C-alpha cells in the first residue's frame, strides 16, 4: 500500500524579494530527507513572477523536480524528488 506524500505548505505572498527563493531553500534544507524519500512534497504559493524562474532552476541543481501551475493569478510550485 502506498501513501500520498505529506504536503509541506509555504505561503510567501506579498513578501519582499528574495524571500521566495531564500525561504524555499531553507525549508528544503530542513525537509530535504523527507522530500528525497518521497514521503513529503513542498508546495510554495507565491505572487512573485521571478520565483517561477529562480526556484525551479535552483532546486533542479539540487536534484529536485519542480512543477509550476498558475492558480487564480498566483503561482503554485510543487517540489518533489525526481
Amino acid at each position: 500500500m502506498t501513501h500520498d506524500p505529506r504536503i509541506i505548505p509555504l505561503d510567501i505572498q506579498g513578501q519582499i524579494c528574495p524571500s521566495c527563493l531564500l525561504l524555499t531553500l531553507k525549508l528544503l534544507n530542513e525537509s530535504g530527507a523527507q522530500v528525497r524519500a518521497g514521503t513529503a512534497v513542498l508546495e510554495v504559493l507565491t505572487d512573485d513572477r521571478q520565483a517561477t524562474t529562480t526556484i525551479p532552476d535552483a532546486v533542479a541543481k539540487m536534484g529536485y523536480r519542480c512543477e509550476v501551475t498558475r492558480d487564480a493569478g498566483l503561482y503554485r510550485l510543487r517540489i518533489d524528488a525526481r
Partner: protein
Amino acid sequence: MHRSDFCVTAMFRDPFLFGDTFLLRMLLLLVVASMALFEAARALGLLSPYPFPLLGPPSLASVAGGFVFGVGMVLAGGCVVGTLYKLGAGSLAAGVAFLGMLAGSALYAEGHAEWTAVTRATRLHDEALTVAQWLGVPPAMLILPLAGLGAALLYRWFRAGRMTRPSHALGHIQPWRAALILAGVGLFSWLLVGMPLGITTAYAKLGAQVESWFWPQHVAALAFFSAQPLAYQPPFVDQVVRGGPGPALDAVAAIQYPLIVGILLGALASALCLGEFRPRWRVPRRQLLSALLGGLLLGLGARMVPGCNIWHLWGGLPILALQSLLFLLGLVPGAWLGSRLLTRFVIRR
C-alpha cells in the same frame, strides 16, 4: 520591467546571496547596447548637450552615496524604479519603501550644506565629467573598444545559452529583450528631453511638497530646496529651462513626474492584463520595517551621490561618466552588506 522582472537590485544582490549572475549579464547587455546607441547618436550630432546635464565632477562622496544606496535597495527589496513597478503591481512593501524614499530625500535636505562641503573636499577633478574628458581623448576611443569587448563576451554567452532562462510566468518577456528595449528608451529620452532616464530629484520634490504641508517655513528656509541645479536648453525648446528639488512645478517636475506616473500605470496595466494585480497586505512586520529603512537609505543615498542606479548605470556608465563609475564602486559593497543584513535580520521563518 514588470513582465521580465528586470530587477536591478537582484542584479547586484543575487551574486552575493546565490552566486547567480544571470541578471548581471542582462545589465551588461543594457550598458553595451547603450554605449553603442549613445555613441552612434553622438557621432551623428544628435546628443545635445553632451555629456548630459546634472552630472557633477568626480568626488569620493559619490562612493559613499553609492554604498548607502546599495544597502538601501537590498533592504527595500527593489531600487527606486524597481519599487515603483512592484508598487504598480500591488505590493504594499514597495509602497512603504516609496514613502521611505520620500522621507530619506527630504531628510537629506537637513544636512545638504555639510554634505556639499564633503563632496568638494573629496573631489578628484575640478572639471572632467567623463573618463574621456579626464584623459583628454575622444569618447569613441574608449567607449567603442569597451563596447566591442562587451559585445564579444555577450555573443559567447548567447551561443552558450547563458542569456536566456525558462520562466513559467504568464506573459513573460526574456530579460535580454527588456535590456535592449530599455537601452532604446534611454536613447529616446536623451533625444527627446536632453538626458537619459532619471527620477530621484522628483522624490526630493515630492518629499519637500509633503513636508511643506506641515512646516512650510522650514522648507522655504532650506537651501537645498531653493537650489536649481538643472539649467539647460533641451532639444526642441528655444530657451533655457530650470529645475531643482524644491516643491515648485519646474523642469524637473515636467520631466520626472510623468516618468513616475508612467512606470506605475505601466506596471498596473501589465498586472491587470495578466489577472495578477492584487493588493498584498499580508507582509511580515519585519519586512515592512526593512522596506521603510531601505527606502529611507535609498532616498538619502540618491541625494548623496547624487542620482540613482537608473541614472548612473543606464545613463552615465555607457558614456563612462566618472560620477557613475564612483557610484558603482560604492554600490557593490553596499549590496553585499545589504544582503548580509537581509538574511540575518529580515527574511526569517
